[in-house]
């Protein structure tokens, strides 16, 4: 069955300036788009390993402070930026890699829509699982 969270990520990835996106936590990518890293934009493949390592360090901070209300983080690496939108009271975040030159404000609106949709899916799943 299609994962509804992967579907949200698929939609986000259709935007030109979303080069890669996923739901992740430290040392673990929880949900990828339907075609996994194959659907990432080609330019991100060359730096994916280093970004992935840097992400794990950011998740250290998220793990430490998410309970205290940390909701958003970002870093710039070479010509790219990684945005982290933390799901409240969890150590999970929606992560997107965008070009450093992208109009970030506009992308943030769709990132927030995706975060809200994923949160709703998670809540629905929790209700079903009791």
């Amino acid at each position, binding site marked *: 069955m299609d994962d509804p969270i992967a579907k949200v990520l698929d*939609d986000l990835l*259709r*935007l030109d*300036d979303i080069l890669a996106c996923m739901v992740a936590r430290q040392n673990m990518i929880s949900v990828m788009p339907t075609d996994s890293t194959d659907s990432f934009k080609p330019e991100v493949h060359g730096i994916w390993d280093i970004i992935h390592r840097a992400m794990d360090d950011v998740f250290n901070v998220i793990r430490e402070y998410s309970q205290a209300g940390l909701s*958003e983080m970002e870093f710039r690496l070479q010509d790219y930026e990684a945005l982290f939108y933390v799901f409240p009271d969890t150590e999970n975040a929606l992560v997107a890699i965008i070009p*450093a*030159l992208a*109009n*970030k*404000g*506009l*992308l*943030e*609106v*769709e*990132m*927030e*829509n995706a975060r809200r949709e994923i949160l709703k899916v998670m809540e629905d799943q929790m209700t079903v699982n009791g």
Partner: protein
Amino acid sequence: MNDLEFKAAVEISRKWDGEEVARELSDKIKNKTTSPKFILLFTTIHYEKEFEKILNGLKNEFPDAPLVGGTVAGFMTQEGCYTRGVTALTVDYPNMDIAIGIGHNTKKNPVNASRECTDMLKMNSSTSFFPQKFLFVLTSGTRVPSLLGTGVKRVYKTKIPSYMLSKLLKTSFQTSQKGVGREDIILDEISNRMSDFNIIGGSSIDDNKMEANFQFFSNKIYTNSVVGLSIKTDLPLLLDSQVAVKKTNKIFKAELSGEKYIIKKIDNKPATKTFFENLNWPDSFMDERLHRRTFFYPILFEKQGEIFPEVIGGLIGNNIVCGFDLKSDDVCIGISSKEILINAIKKELENITRSGILKIGIVIYCSALLETLGRDFFKVQEIIKEYYSNSPFLLIATGGEDFCIPNKILKHSNETINMAAFA
């Protein structure tokens, strides 16, 4: 007021396929009204390949409803905030006369385009005597030209003399219809020719890259055009305009180039260098990330007591390129922030709601403000929803904003929030 039935819908679709978008919007509209008097349709640039299907689908369902619209950077409704999607605003009310018009080649000949548009609006308009006259306009906004054959860039470190830059940009209007939108000239002409109409409008734009924009007229797709929709009605019309920028004490004398939207000198010194020095910005800030910074620091001039913020569109050598003509050489650097912006929208809503209970409203909101707010755009939605209660509203983010109340105010500007509502 009257007891006639007023129905309105502001609907959105997030589907990707044009036919599905049209079907979803039509179904949602039909749930609220079966015979809309008009349709205002806006999409983000992501739907460029789907425009035809969307427009044909809507025209098939609502053949009698005049339709105008175009691309915008984003939009907001009661339902949510989006920078990807399609939205439609419709109204059904008996005492409402509608006309639509279009003018072409806005960059090559803005005055002619305005005349073409207003002639059509006048020709299609009935001779009804409804007291309220309202005009919505959407003009093709700036399309960044490729100067010096280096692709689309907003920042050139090359030292180009301002007279040569003026020539290049002028040639660009004629050869490729790229350059600034010339919306100020268009608004002046339209307001002259429809002098008893209150006007609200904006500049069509893509996802703030300013590379392409499109206008819709009936089921046809255009670019470099101005489209208008006029409404004559007996419903009270409420209007307000707020600037989301504050003045700083950095005041200058600007020396303009032949093209009045190019500043070549500030206080008799090279413009870009002086602007950077005043903000204590290093040269390394002179890159294609320019807008992320300059949106917060527009250039302001004043005319007849009104503040006109200008977003810096490009830096070409030591020339600062703005979005429209500076009407004064006394300029200052403005400052924008989330707090200033949220206070401006609250003030606007208080002014508007003081005069009546809102039936429906449209807000034209600068796409630069959307870029600066990012995720906090949702906070603006919460504020607007408080004032609109359950009434529908549509906010569109455009590349520039038009506002006119006859004999009171006439302005094309950036970083403003303009609102029109029927009560």
